[in-house]
């Protein structure tokens, strides 16, 4: 959608973000992902309202999958906490990369609290794509509208999946779980216009597979630091010689 529409007010920007959320490809992807999540929660014996609360509080599909499957399987709580935290490391550089884009003259710290909590793959990818086309003073409101749209979609379809779960054949349940990696892969690739981002994507795919296969501890952290730094260094070297 054209992000250039100038919003007359904060409310208009919020509603613009909401509309953008409900008409993007991520709407279908989140719907499918959270139908899968609902089915998973049902399978592991967690409640439907518990799932909805976890969507609002955690708001990160990989962490929720880990929490549901490991709590449901009766893993030790400390192990669950470590696994969830490792999967969430990516939120740190995402917030660091996003907030400078949201900030305008006179933006207060408390204006950034909600966008910080809302930061997740779908919102991050779409914000990085759409925000540069918006006036700075409307960006926080637009991004909040976008996030509320996505979170509402996810929470609603979690209930749908929960109550559908008993009916779902295994192949279809597998296909729903496949939606998350497919949409993450393609939306990240679409956003990766600069060489550095494309290189980071490829290196991350390769390193993530190799380090997991080799049973390396903290595999995701090393994938990010190794692959990301290498992509960054190559980018700096090319800039220096250009």
């Amino acid at each position, binding site marked *: 959608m054209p992000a250039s529409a100038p919003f007359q007010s904060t409310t208009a920007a919020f509603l613009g973000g909401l509309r953008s959320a409900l008409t993007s*490809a991520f709407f*279908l*992807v989140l719907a499918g992902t959270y139908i899968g999540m609902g089915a998973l929660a049902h*399978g592991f014996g967690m*409640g439907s309202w*518990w799932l909805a609360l*976890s969507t609002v*509080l*955690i708001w990160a599909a990989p962490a929720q999958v880990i*929490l549901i499957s490991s*709590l449901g399987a009766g893993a030790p*709580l400390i192990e669950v*906490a470590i696994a*969830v*935290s490792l999967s*969430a490391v990516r*939120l*740190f*550089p995402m*917030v*660091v990369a996003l*907030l*400078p884009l949201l900030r305008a003259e006179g933006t207060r*710290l408390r204006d950034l609290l909600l966008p910080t*909590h809302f*930061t997740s793959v779908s919102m*991050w990818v779409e914000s990085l794509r759409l925000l540069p086309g918006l006036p700075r003073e409307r960006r926080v409101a637009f991004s909040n509208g976008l996030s509320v749209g996505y979170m509402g979609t996810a929470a609603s379809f979690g209930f749908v999946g929960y109550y559908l779960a008993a009916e779902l054949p*295994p*192949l*279809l*349940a*597998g*296909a729903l*779980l*496949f*939606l*998350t*990696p*497919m949409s*993450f*892969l*393609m939306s*990240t690739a*679409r956003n*990766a216009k600069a060489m*550095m*981002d494309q290189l*980071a*994507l490829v290196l*991350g795919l390769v390193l*993530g597979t190799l*380090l997991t296969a080799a049973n390396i501890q903290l*595999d*995701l952290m090393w*994938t*990010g630091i190794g*692959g*990301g*730094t290498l992509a960054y260094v190559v*980018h700096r070297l090319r800039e220096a010689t250009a």
Partner: protein
Amino acid sequence: MNAVWTEMSPYLALILVGYLPNEIWRVFGLVLARGLNEDSQIVVWSRAVATAILAGVIAKLIVFSTGALAGIPLGVRIGATVCGFLTFLAIKRSVFAGVVAGEGALLLGGWLLGH
């Protein structure tokens, strides 16, 4: 008392071993990002690290699947990923077209091998 505990403990676990260990990284980001602008080298580097970690999560979900997806053979999952990505590249980098093609290939492959 015991009944209340049984009722409340999943919610307590959600907060303590779900919400807090997840949210802490967002809060760290908020603290570090204060005063940085989007052209800062640390912000550019952070974008590269975030992209690489995200790619790692994608690879793990596809190659080392769990739950119902693990029941579909690895070859089918990788073939479907390639199929989806090629469609994405062929049709004007459309995420929607790529996801539909990947899902279609996965369902077809899983169905054929399941029969």
